[in-house]
C-alpha cells in the first residue's frame, strides 16, 4: 500500500515541489552566481585574453608580499586562537551550568558586537598614547611607546580578538560530546594526567580544533575591515589589495585575478575540511 502511494506521488512530474524555490534561485543566480562568475571571467579577458594577470600577480614582489603577509597573519592568528581557546572550551564543557551560561553570554555578546566598534576599540587601545602604552610606561617596563598599531602586530592582535569565539564554540561542542568515562578508563589503565591529555583528550577533540582552526584560517585570509584599519599602508592584506585594485586603481583584470585566487584557496580548504571531517558542525 505504502509503496503504491510513493509511486503515485512520484509519477506525475519529476522535479516536484521545486516551484517555491524559484524566486530565491533567481535572486541568487542574478545577483550572486552570475556576478561572481563574470568577475572571474574578467581576470582572463581584461585588458586582453590570456593569463597575464595571474603572471603579474605572482611575479610582482609587491603583490607577492601581500600574499605572504596574508598567509603569515592567518597562520599566526589561527595558532594563537587555538592555544588560547583550548583551555576555555575545555573548562566551558565541564563547568557547572550556571557558570557556563555566563561565560557563553560573554562570548556571544562579543561576537554580536559590531565589528567596526570592536576594531575601533583596538585602534584606540593600541595607539601611541593609548592605555596599553601609557600603562607599560608608568610601570617602567618600556621607556618609549611601542608601535602596536599600523603594522602587522596590530592586525594580529585585532584579528585574534575577533576570531576567538569562532574557535571556542566548535571546540566546546566537540569536548562536550566526549564521553568522560574514556578518560576514567585511561586513568584506570595507569595513564598519568599528561599522558591522558596527550593520548586521549587531545586526539578526541582534534576534529573540533581542526574545524575551528580551518574556519578561522579561511576567514582571516579574506578579512577586510580589521586588517585595513589596524594595519599600515605598507602591510596590506589580500582583501584590501583587491578593493584597492578595483576601486582606486580601476585595474579590474588584476583585482579579479586576486579575488579568484582567494576564492580558490577558500573553496579548497572547505573541500579538505568536508573530505576529512565530514563538513561543518
Amino acid at each position, binding site marked *: 500500500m505504502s509503496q503504491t502511494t510513493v509511486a503515485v506521488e*512520484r509519477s506525475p512530474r*519529476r522535479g*516536484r515541489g*521545486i516551484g*517555491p*524555490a524559484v*524566486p*530565491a534561485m533567481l*535572486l*541568487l543566480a542574478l*545577483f*550572486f552566481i*552570475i*556576478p*561572481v562568475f*563574470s*568577475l572571474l571571467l574578467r581576470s582572463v579577458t581584461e585588458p586582453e585574453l590570456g593569463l597575464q594577470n595571474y603572471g603579474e600577480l605572482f611575479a610582482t614582489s609587491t603583490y607577492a608580499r601581500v600574499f605572504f603577509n596574508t598567509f603569515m597573519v592567518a597562520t599566526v592568528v589561527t595558532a594563537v586562537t587555538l592555544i*588560547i581557546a583550548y*583551555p*576555555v572550551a575545555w*573548562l566551558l*564543557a*565541564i563547568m557547572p551550568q550556571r557558570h557556563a551560561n555566563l*561565560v557563553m553570554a*560573554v562570548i556571544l*555578546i562579543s561576537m*554580536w*558586537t*559590531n*565589528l*567596526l*566598534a570592536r*576594531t*575601533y*576599540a583596538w*585602534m*584606540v*587601545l593600541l*595607539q601611541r*598614547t*593609548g*592605555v596599553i602604552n601609557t600603562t607599560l610606561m608608568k610601570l617602567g617596563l618600556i621607556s618609549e611607546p611601542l608601535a602596536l598599531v599600523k603594522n602587522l602586530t596590530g592586525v594580529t592582535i585585532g584579528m585574534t580578538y575577533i576570531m*576567538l569565539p569562532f574557535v571556542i564554540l566548535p571546540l566546546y561542542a566537540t569536548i562536550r560530546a566526549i564521553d568522560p568515562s574514556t*578518560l*576514567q578508563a585511561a586513568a584506570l589503565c595507569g595513564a598519568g*594526567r599528561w599522558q591522558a*591529555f596527550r593520548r*586521549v*583528550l587531545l586526539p578526541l577533540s582534534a576534529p573540533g580544533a581542526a574545524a575551528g582552526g580551518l574556519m578561522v584560517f579561511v576567514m582571516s*585570509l579574506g578579512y*577586510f*575591515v580589521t586588517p585595513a*584599519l589596524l594595519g599600515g599602508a605598507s602591510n596590506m592584506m589580500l*582583501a584590501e589589495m*583587491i*578593493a584597492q585594485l578595483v576601486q582606486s586603481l580601476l585595474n579590474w583584470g588584476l583585482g*579579479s585575478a586576486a*579575488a579568484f585566487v*582567494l576564492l580558490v584557496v*577558500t573553496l579548497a580548504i572547505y573541500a579538505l575540511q568536508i573530505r576529512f571531517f565530514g563538513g561543518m558542525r
Partner: protein
Amino acid sequence: MLLSYRKLGGLRIALWAITLAVCLFLLVPIIFIAALSFGSSQWLIFPPPSWTTKWYHELFADPRWLQAAMTSAKVGLLSAALSVFLGLLASFALVRGSFPGRGILRALFLTPMVLPVIVFAVAIYALFLRIGLNGTLVGFVIAHTVLGFPFAVIAIVNSLEGFDKSIEDAAVLCGASPLQAKLKVTLPAIKLGLFSAAIFSFLISWDEVVVAIFMASPTLQTLPVRIWGALRQDLSPVIAAASTILVAFTLVVMALAALIRSRMNK
C-alpha cells in the same frame, strides 16, 4: 579525570584563570569604548579627566549621522522582510520537495555565507556599476538580502523540519484549501523559526560593512559606512558615541528577541 570538574584539582584553577582572562579580553574593549564615549578628552585619554555627554550632542546635531541611521534601519528592515519571504518559500521546497538535486540546491543556498565577502562585494559592485544600482536603496537591499538569505533558510528549514506535516494535511481533509492550511496552521506553528530568521537577517544587514562600503555614495550611506569613513580620518570620540549606540541597539534587539522567543515558547 580530565573531564570531571570536581577532580581537576590544581588544573581547575589554571583553566579558570585563563578563562577569566579571556572573558576580560573579550569584554574590556567594548566597555572601554562605551566609557570613552562619555569621557571629556578629545584625545581619548583614559581614564578621562571628567565625564560629559557632549559627543552624543555633537552626534545628534549632525543630520548626516541620523540620515545614515535611518538608511541602515530601512535597508535592514526591507532586506530582512525579503530574506524571510524568499527563505520561507525556499524552505518549503527544500523540506517538502522531492526533486533531484535537492542537496545541491541546499548547499547552493548557503554559499553566500561561506564565500569571502570581499569577492561578493567586488562582484556585485561591478554588476551594479553597469546597471546603475550603485548608491541606491534598491542596490543595498538586494546585496544585503543575498547575505541575509542563508541565515533565514537555516532558521526556517530547522523549524519546518520539526513540524509534522500531517497536521497540515488534517486541515486540508477538514475542508481548508492547501493555501489556507499553510497560512493558518503551518505558519503559526513555525513562527519561532520565522522570527529568528527575521532577527538574524536584520542584524546581518545592520552590521554589514564590506559590501556597504562599495555600494555607498556620498548621499546614501549606512551607519557602518559612515563610521568607517570617520575612522579613516581620525579617532574622534564622536565615533565612540556612534559605536556605543550601534552596539547598544544590537544588544537591545537581541534581548528583546530572547524575551519574545521565551514568550512564544510558553
